[in-house]
C-alpha cells in the first residue's frame, strides 16, 4: 500500500510475426519486491520477462504494442538507449552461462564494457558483487581460475554476481534454479530473499513451492494472457480464477 510501482505494462501486446504471444497485459509491479511469473510452458512468461530489458529486440519479426514502463518511463521510446537500459535491468538465465574466462573477469565484464578501467574500482566491485551473491567465501582464493570449473550452483551465483556488478535496480531471472540441486537452489532462493531489500526482482519459475517461498506477488499466465495477479499468499491459498487453481494444484489439462 502506497508502495511505489517499479515495473509496469499497459495494454501490452507482443507478436512473433503473426503469432500473438502476449495479449493486452496490464500489470504493475512493486519496487523492491519479488514478483513470480508462473504458467504452463509456452504461455509467454519468458517473452514478457524479456520485454523489460528489450531482449526480444534481437528476434526477427518480434514487435510490441502498448507500453512497458520502468520508473514510469516507457522503455520502448525512441530516445531510450538500450545499453543504458540493460545497466539498469540485469538478467539471469535458466542455465548458468559464465564466459570461458576467470571468475574475476566474469564479474567485471559488464563494467569493463562500460569503460571502467581502474583496477581498484574493478576489484572492489568484484568483491562486493560476489559477496552479495553469497559466493565470495567459496571463490575468494581462486578468483583467477576458470569460471567453468565451478559447480552449477556456483556458476549460477556467479552469473547473479555478474548481473549485480553493473548495479542494476531491476533483476530479471528466468528459471534461475531449475538446473540446480536442492542445496544450490536454497542458496539462490536465500539470495533472492536478501536481494529484494535493494532490487526489484522478477522471477520465472516452474516450481510452485519456489514461487511460494521467494515471491511477494505472483502472476499466472495462460496462453499469452495474464489470468491472475495477486499477493503470493492469496494466490496459493485462495486463487480467484479456476485456471489458476487447476494450475497450481497440478490439475491442468
Amino acid at each position, binding site marked *: 500500500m502506497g508502495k511505489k510501482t517499479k515495473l509496469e505494462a499497459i495494454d501490452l501486446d507482443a507478436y512473433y510475426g503473426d503469432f500473438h504471444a502476449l495479449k493486452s497485459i496490464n500489470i504493475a509491479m512493486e519496487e523492491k519486491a519479488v514478483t513470480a511469473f508462473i504458467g504452463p510452458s509456452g504461455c509467454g512468461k519468458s517473452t514478457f520477462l524479456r520485454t523489460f530489458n528489450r531482449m526480444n529486440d534481437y528476434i526477427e519479426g518480434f514487435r510490441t504494442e502498448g507500453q512497458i514502463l520502468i520508473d514510469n518511463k516507457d522503455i520502448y521510446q525512441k530516445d531510450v538507449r538500450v545499453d543504458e537500459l540493460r545497466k539498469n535491468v540485469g538478467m539471469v538465465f535458466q542455465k548458468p552461462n559464465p564466459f570461458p574466462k576467470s571468475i574475476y573477469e566474469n564479474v567485471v565484464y559488464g563494467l569493463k564494457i562500460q569503460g571502467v578501467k581502474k583496477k581498484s574500482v574493478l576489484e572492489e566491485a568484484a568483491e562486493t558483487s560476489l559477496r552479495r551473491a553469497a559466493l565470495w567465501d567459496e571463490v575468494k582464493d581462486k578468483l583467477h581460475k576458470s569460471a567453468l570449473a565451478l559447480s552449477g550452483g556456483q556458476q549460477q551465483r556467479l552469473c547473479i554476481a555478474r548481473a549485480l556488478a553493473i548495479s542494476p535496480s531491476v533483476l530479471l531471472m528466468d528459471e534461475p534454479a531449475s538446473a540446480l540441486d536442492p542445496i544450490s537452489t536454497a542458496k539462490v532462493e536465500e539470495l533472492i530473499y536478501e536481494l529484494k531489500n535493494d532490487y526489484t526482482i522478477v522471477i520465472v519459475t516452474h516450481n*510452485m*513451492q519456489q514461487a511460494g517461498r521467494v515471491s511477494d506477488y505472483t502472476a499466472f499466465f495462460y496462453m499469452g494472457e495474464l489470468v491472475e495477479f495477486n499477493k503470493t499468499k492469496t494466490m*496459493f*491459498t*485462495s*486463487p480467484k480464477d479456476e485456471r489458476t487453481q487447476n494450475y*497450481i*494444484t*497440478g*490439475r491442468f489439462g
Partner: protein
Amino acid sequence: MPHIDVELERLKTKLLEMWDLVEYQLQSGREAMLNADQELAKLIVKRDKKVNQYDLKIDRMCENFFALFTPVAVDLRMVLAVLKINANLERIGDTAEGIARFVQKLDSPVDSQLLELTQVLPMYEEALAMFAECRVAFISNDPKLAKALIKRDKMLNKIYRKSDAVATKFMQENPNKISEALAILSIIKKLERVGDQVTNIAEEIIFYREAKFVKHKQDKKKKKD
C-alpha cells in the same frame, strides 16, 4: 484420477469411517441413558479407544500428505479442514464417553418427569440430527447446509440455558433424586458441547469450500450481542 486426488479420497474415507463410529457412540449414549444400561455404557467407554486410534491415524495421514504433496489452495484447505474436523470428532467421541460415564451413575431408568422437564431427549435428538446433517454437508461439499447448521445450534443453547433452573426446581421437589438430576444436568452440558463442536466442523466445511474464515465474523457478532 490424479494421484493427489486418490490420496485425498483415502483421507476423506478414513475421516468418514471415524465419523460413523462417533455417530454410533453418540447414539449408543442415548440408548444407555434412556435405559440406564450399564453394560452399554461400559462398552461406549471402551470403544472410545478406537475413536482415539482413528484420530492418531488421520493426524499421521495428514502429516504425510503435507510432506509428500505440499498441497496448495483448495487441496491445502481440504487437508486443514480434515485435520480440524478430526480433532472435533475426537472431542465429540470424548463427549459420548463422558455421557456414558454419567449413565454409569444412574441406577435405574431416568424419571420420566425429569426427562420431560429438562427436555434432554429432544435436545439429544437435535444434537444427533445436527451431527448427521453435518456429515452430509461434508460429503456433498455443501456450505449452505453447513451454514444452516450453525444457526440450529441455538436450540441446544436455549435448552441448556434453562436446564439449571429446571433441574434445581426438580431437585427441591424430589430430594431423593438429586444424583439422578445432576447426571442429567451433566449430560445436557455435554450435549451443548456437541452443538459447539458440530458448529466448529460446519465452519471448517465453509472454509474449505469458500476459502472464508467464518469464525472471526461470528466472534464479532457475539461481541455486538
